[in-house]
């Protein structure tokens, strides 16, 4: 008897309009042994996710042209095939209101800029190893508003 074991994807989708950070994140993800798929903004990430859900995780900047990180998460919540993908949201603002809004929309982890390499690597490992975290995206709570 053979048991089919579905291999977890090694691809991570990165969306950031800043070329320096995009390149930095791409290299940091590769360093962790994953394949980075980097796009320039939220709209490109949205287009990619429409046709391709084979990602182990998503890393999105909060503030991007066309579509923001939260908008992509909201779209992912509407598609069952994308709901299992955990998301790391990156923002320059670290206030609690914004974090609460991100988590209630379905972000799995949150990282505040500027961050150092060690902080990013730790956050990425938490994102990829904690099996309980993505469940928050399967049934996103009521959006936090104030």
């Amino acid at each position, binding site marked *: 008897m053979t048991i089919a074991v579905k291999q977890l994807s090694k691809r991570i989708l990165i969306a950031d*309009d*800043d*070329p*320096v*950070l995009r*390149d*930095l994140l791409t*290299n*940091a993800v*590769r*360093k962790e042994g994953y394949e980075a798929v980097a796009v320039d903004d939220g709209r490109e990430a949205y287009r990619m996710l429409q046709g391709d859900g084979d990602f182990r995780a998503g890393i999105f*900047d909060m*503030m991007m042209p066309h579509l923001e990180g939260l908008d992509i998460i909201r779209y992912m919540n509407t598609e069952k095939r994308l709901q299992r993908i955990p998301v790391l949201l990156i923002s*320059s603002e670290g206030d609690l209101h914004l974090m609460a809004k991100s988590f209630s929309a379905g972000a799995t982890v949150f990282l505040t*800029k*500027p961050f*150092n*390499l*060690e902080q990013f690597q730790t956050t990425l490992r938490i994102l990829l190893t904690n099996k309980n975290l993505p469940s928050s995206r399967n049934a996103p709570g009521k959006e936090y508003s104030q």
Partner: protein
Amino acid sequence: MNQAITQFAFATGLPRVLGDLEPAVDLATLATLEELQEEGEPNLIVELIDLFLADVPCRLSALRASLVLENYPALKRGAHSLRGSSGSLGALRTSALCEEIEMEPADAFASLAALLTSLEAELARVFPVLQAQRLLRL
């Protein structure tokens, strides 16, 4: 006595002069990126510096245009974006100035103009340091 010196310093703008003596780029922050370097691959720090040097003039022009057009949301978005990349490369004062622009009241034209001028001056200090760091790694 100390208070008098402090008052004199602030009255003469000494803190600003002292600020100019701060390193434009924190080389320790830049050096941490060496951890990401893969053997046989092009130098990552050179690559990141090249991206920054190519990208920033366009971003600065966009910031200046946003200010002239009094498009404050665009100005703050632009500063927000520049804050991230400058901080990652160790241009900490640049990053702090971007944060000040983000935090300034939306319609404070005069103070935003002054901050943007400071940002341009700071980047004029940052560029040669990054160019030198780039050359050192070629």
